[in-house]
């Protein structure tokens, strides 16, 4: 019986086509993870900063609104028919007739039921303090001719309390 003729095959050229070792795969995975984590960190930071900016802008809007409302009131109580202020238990702001009535104000702004933005889901606390002073930067004096209105809006999350101050002087607003 004749021996079968051996089949000759061309030699396989293995140079440069070998697979990755386990070590190389691990190193590549670690590098990729570090890169992805870095990118995610940057995105999270940007998102947090944007949320914070949005909340601060909203707080500024709320603070300016109350500051303007207080500054529109008379410096001194009316000669007659003076209504009590917040500290005396009167929480009807429409009845306030002088800036001191707002001292101690502390109100809550509830989240919006039909929330479309992040700020709608937060609760805000708005407080007001009115300090009378002899000079704009002087010590507190109840009979002073100046008053510093301080409105603080504190969000329940995403930002620090926002404080807005306004100096008013003893002037008579004639209506």
């Amino acid at each position, binding site marked *: 019986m004749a021996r079968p003729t051996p089949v000759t095959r061309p030699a396989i050229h293995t140079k440069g086509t070998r697979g990755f070792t386990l070590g190389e795969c691990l190193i590549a995975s670690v590098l990729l993870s570090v890169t992805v984590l870095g990118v995610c960190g940057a995105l999270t930071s940007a998102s947090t900063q944007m949320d914070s900016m949005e909340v601060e*802008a909203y707080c500024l809007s709320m603070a300016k*609104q109350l500051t*303007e409302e207080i500054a*529109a009131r008379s410096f001194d109580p009316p000669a007659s028919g003076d209504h009590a202020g917040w500290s005396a238990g009167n929480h009807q702001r429409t009845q306030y007739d002088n800036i001191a009535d707002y001292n101690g104000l502390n109100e809550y702004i509830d989240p919006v039921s039909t929330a479309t933005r992040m700020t709608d889901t937060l609760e805000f606390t708005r407080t007001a303090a009115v300090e009378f002073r002899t000079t704009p930067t002087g010590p507190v004096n109840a009979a002073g001719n100046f008053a510093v209105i301080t409105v603080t809006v504190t969000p329940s999350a995403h930002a620090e309390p926002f404080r807005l101050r306004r100096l008013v002087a003893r002037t008579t607003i004639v*209506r």
Partner: protein
Amino acid sequence: MGLVMTSLIAGAIASFMISVARCWNASEELQTATIRASQFTERLASKLRGAKLIGYWNDGSIGSACLIYWRDANNDGVMVLSELGAIAYNPASHTINFHAQTVAVGDPDPVCTTLDFTTGVVATTLISTGRAKPMIRDVSSAQLSVSNASSLTVAPTVAWVVDFQESDSSVVTRVCTASLRAPATP
């Protein structure tokens, strides 16, 4: 295999770039809304600081929000048409406009009665025929409240609550407040 890997990497880069672009867009829209509201507050204050009285006003729950005020320019205590101004929201153009009627030199300046001033007759005339100047644009809705509107002891405070529609359909709300400072009586 190479094509698959390239596609995966390109997809990852594309989604990353889309996220960054959305973040920039949202941030820019928010800043724009805040700046617009601040500008409007200043413009509102400049109109109302010297005003004596607030007349007719509509909070915007029915119809468009608007108000009319009287600024006694010559301090004679007589309410004439050229001394009146109206600030009204126009839902068609999404703007809050300032309306005023200019009277040419020599032409009669009609005197307005308190009734006209408070019942909206003059406000309608001013808004329909007066020169309109936008005070703020791209407002999706606006509401108005006036506290102590007719008080003779406390200065009235006007608060506009303006909404800006963002590209993601969310709404940014800002409150723009100003108060009257001029005496109500001459």
